[in-house]
């Protein structure tokens, strides 16, 4: 790749630059900052859409009365039960149980705090979900 070919396109880098190695006019490698590349944007959006989709699915489940708010907060932290288990020290099966609205509502304060800490939220946030549509990732 030549210096002039380093992509400078709109991207998710949000003003940051990525260091690329490219050839200068003398054919020597130099570091060139890239503000973004369409290709990166496409594959990054694909991954982020997946996160957003998981959030929407969780919210739908909660509104249908099938899932507890824990499902939403797990989705927005991009966690599955295995990862939340690693963070909280709570067994996966128990987490699956707490994804149901009833058992979640009856959670003792201590356990709720453990979930909140693992998800980096306050206990109050953990109990609530946003009202409208959620487009943002966090």
């Amino acid at each position, binding site marked *: *790749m030549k210096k002039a070919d*380093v992509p400078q396109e709109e991207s*998710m*880098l*949000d003003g*940051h*630059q*990525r*260091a*690329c*190695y*490219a*050839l200068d006019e003398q054919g*020597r*490698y130099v*570091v060139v*900052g890239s503000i973004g*590349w*369409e*290709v*990166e944007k*496409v*594959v*990054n959006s*694909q*991954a*982020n859409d*997946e996160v957003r989709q998981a959030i929407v699915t969780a919210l739908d489940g909660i509104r249908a009365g099938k899932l507890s708010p824990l499902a939403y907060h797990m989705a927005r*932290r*991009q*966690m*599955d039960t*295995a*990862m939340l288990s*690693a*963070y909280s020290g709570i067994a996966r099966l128990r987490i699956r149980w707490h994804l149901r609205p009833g058992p979640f509502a009856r959670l003792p304060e201590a356990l709720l705090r453990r979930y909140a800490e693992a998800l*980096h939220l306050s206990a109050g946030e953990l109990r609530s979900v946003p009202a409208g549509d959620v487009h*943002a*990732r*966090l």
Partner: protein
Amino acid sequence: MRDFEHQHAAHCESGTVAALLRHQGLNLSEPMVFGIGGGLFFLHLSFVKMGGIPLTSYRDAPRVIIKNMERRLGVRWRQHRYRNTESAMRSLDGFLATGRPVGLQTGIYWLSYFPIDMRFHFNGHNIVAFGRQGEDYLVSDPVLETAVTCLAGDLRRARFAKGPFAPHGLAYYPEHVPADPDLKAAARDAIRQTARRMTGIPVPFFGVRGIRSLASKLERWPEKLGPEQARKWVSSVVRMQEEIGTGGAGFRFMYAAFLQEAAELLKTPALGEAARDLTATGDRWRDFAVQGAQLVKNNRDDSGAYAKLATILRECADREQEIFTRLKSAV
């Protein structure tokens, strides 16, 4: 102790190691660290899944660059892991108080100085902490253009991220850096080993064999997984190649830069030719990324596109096999 100097790098591990060594007076470029560190590789493990997607990597295992600095240059590292956040942060504060920058392994998800769309759970991200600013920390993240301030809470969580590659607070710094290491021998040894690993592992997961096996697997993805899932898997390969900080073309350009430097160091023109050929192969890898992204974006069935992608992969495998075979006898 002198002031820590931030330098923009393509990759977190080679950038962190280069920065720590430079601070101790050993000034090596990032490609040199990456090359001597034996960073370049390829692997595709269809039976190891991360988030349901098979593992593809364009480089060797995390921390291999750090280890090879010890083996090839005689750098002696001190490494600390911790039981809990409090002792890890206290220990870090102690290092910083004596003016010692330290490398930290972190989970990128918790580092809020990154744009939100860049934050995924990946626990092998290396950064340098080099000072305090009130409660918070001065951090040199090699993949950013400038040094940043990292919130204390972010750093605490990032150092104790959980899941695959959990860092357990890992902090490291060079305890001894040789003033005048034998770079020539190190570069020769590194090139030989990378060439062997790229061409000589007799299982179809690693090196050029791994690239070929990805080609034949990828061709069957649409029928095996359905169009949507197949696109998602292609997308993840392209991300591993371009999005995670490789300097372009899955580290191929950075390695070519290393070969270019090594050609001068060892006065071996054959390495310069290999650098040129690897650059051309890198350009093909970029074509693979462009066409892969098109497939992801178009969002419609196109089985011809998968065959085209596989053809590019096979071409890259053939070229890399030829280059690395040549390199074995060139050094």
